[in-house]
């Protein structure tokens, strides 16, 4: 299946969880915040959240700013 992550199409197998996807992207789940289809995903739900075809994810983190 294909999902969209930060505007990029990413191919992955059916049923992959958000936690697994973050790991594959080299991301520490404790340092990011995620929106799935416009809804914030609580960090404690990352491991149980199975992704579905066509999902749109926004993965954000904190950067320097004033």
């Amino acid at each position: 299946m294909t999902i969209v992550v930060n505007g990029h199409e990413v191919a992955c197998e059916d049923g992959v969880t958000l936690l697994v996807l973050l790991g594959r992207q080299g991301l520490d789940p404790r340092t990011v915040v995620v929106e799935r289809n416009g809804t914030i995903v609580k960090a404690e739900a990352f491991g149980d959240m199975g992704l579905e075809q066509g999902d749109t994810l926004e993965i954000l983190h904190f950067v320097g700013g004033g």
Partner: protein
Amino acid sequence: MTHDTRHDDTFVLGGQALESRLFIGTGKYGTDALIPAVADASGSQVITVALRRVDLGNPKGNVLAHIPAHMRLLPNTSGARTVDEAVRIARLARAAGCGDWIKIEIISDSRYLLPDGYATARATEILAAEGFTVLPYMNPDLYVARDLENAGAAAIMPLGAPIGTNRGLRTREMIGILIEEMSLPIVVDAGIGKPSEACDAMEMGAAACLVNTAIASAGDPVAMARAFGEAVRAGRRAFLARAGRVLDGRAEASSPLTGFLGGQA
């Protein structure tokens, strides 16, 4: 934190007692590894951060790793051009576990980066109702300030000059009016370029100053952070000490006018 940057009185904001009235930013440092030393030298207890998409090709650079654990995070909504975008960023920042303080920036003017007062007031109302401690970045306009107070802002953050310019307190007169007329704390944000300007704002009665570019763009950011900490402390102390009167049109001797050497008894 070094003791010499603490102040004579405490600033309570959003239920937190702050000993330092200097807020600092984390933008524009050549390397984020400088941030711990800057934070320590400044004595600051409040530090701003921004929220951005992770770069999937280069998933590094989380700035939180460089921020001392005792500091209060103040995420901003930079990048927001509308009320909805600012509210979305604020909710994401809170979901990321960074507490409930939020600096609202809503800007659709890309040249001078001036804040949209109407949109900022609407976002403030929404987020204050959701329990955020809302610190809106604003133009120093009395009517906007009143709208922000009515909307539930915890403090207001008028600009001294456009963001990132180091041009100083160009809006000094208007900030003075806000200090005089508003009961909300005034945190001067943006444009302060030198410690003397931060000191001036504090002498006028500002509750605090937020300084990012002036520190980050200095030749020695750590030394400049210390200078700003000292300047803000000095300005606050001077405000509390209440400046003496100004005399125009003549001088007034500071030394006695009698008992001169060789004079009459």
